């Protein structure tokens, strides 16, 4: 594979940061989140089990889903280019589930539903590219090592119903 390009892509350590401010206890309290680089401004944060939780407030589950979707999508975009099937558009929906296993609260599952619009891309080629992307995507690797079930389904856009 294109090892030189890999090296280029990850030659330097990359960092991301975020700041959370929270007031009061979990159930009646509220907070805010700011990404280090300012995208999205100040986001409202509520515990999903609280009465004040509703549309417009984000949560750790949602942010984990966003991290997985964005990481996998970028990795797949790169994989497809290297395999001569550059995508016009990749749409990924991630659903991430937190829960309890053996008495410990963990990330149980992350499901990705992906649609790829690329010229001449067969289902078999996409399946192979998705497999390779799954081995490279750092968020997939982190979740997998953590014991989360990773379920990725991808299809070429031409088979869209």
């Amino acid at each position, binding site marked *: 594979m294109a090892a030189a390009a890999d090296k280029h892509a990850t030659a330097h350590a990359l960092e991301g940061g975020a*700041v959370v401010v929270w*007031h009061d206890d979990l159930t009646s309290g509220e907070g805010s989140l700011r990404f280090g680089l300012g*995208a999205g401004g100040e986001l409202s944060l509520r515990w999903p089990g609280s009465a004040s939780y509703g549309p417009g407030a984000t949560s750790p589950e949602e942010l984990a889903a966003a991290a997985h979707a964005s990481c996998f999508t970028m990795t797949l975009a790169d994989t497809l280019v290297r395999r001569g099937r550059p995508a016009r558009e990749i749409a990924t929906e991630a659903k991430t589930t937190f829960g309890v296993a053996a008495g410990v609260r963990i990330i149980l599952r992350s499901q990705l539903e992906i649609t790829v619009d690329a010229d001449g891309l067969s289902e078999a080629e996409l399946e192979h590219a998705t497999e390779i992307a799954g081995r490279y995507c750092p968020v997939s690797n982190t979740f997998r090592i953590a014991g989360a079930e990773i379920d990725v389904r991808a299809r070429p856009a031409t088979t869209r119903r």
Partner: protein
Amino acid sequence: MPIAERTATVVWDGSLARGSGTLESGSGALTGLPVTWAARTEAPGGKTSPEELIAGAHATCFTMALALVLGEAGTPPERLATDARCVLDEVDGAPRITRVVLSVRGGVGGLDEPTFRDAVDRASALCPVSNALRGNVDVTVEATLDAA
């Protein structure tokens, strides 16, 4: 046994280096957030990245766990401020999330430093993101109790 499930959608156009994407979350809190590879490697210019989103997931999860622990102990915090930094590095030729540093400041009336540290340790054991990262990511938690 699931407790909570949330969704997010990314739409990406073009190659990794020159393409760009947008991110929407199921709650509507994240709408049309720009995502690019350049945001990870070069000047970010207000665009987000997976590393930043993991930092966000960890900071929110840990802070809520700490609010729960402190509330149950009868000392709900007036204010918790958590800063998270997530590092992506190359390990054996593949990109890996190698480190997260959490730095939490607590404003909690009537609490001493050892009790606060104990609450921080219990929050780490409770937080699902901390539990997921432990063992494969080097997680450091720095805790400071603000003077009342």
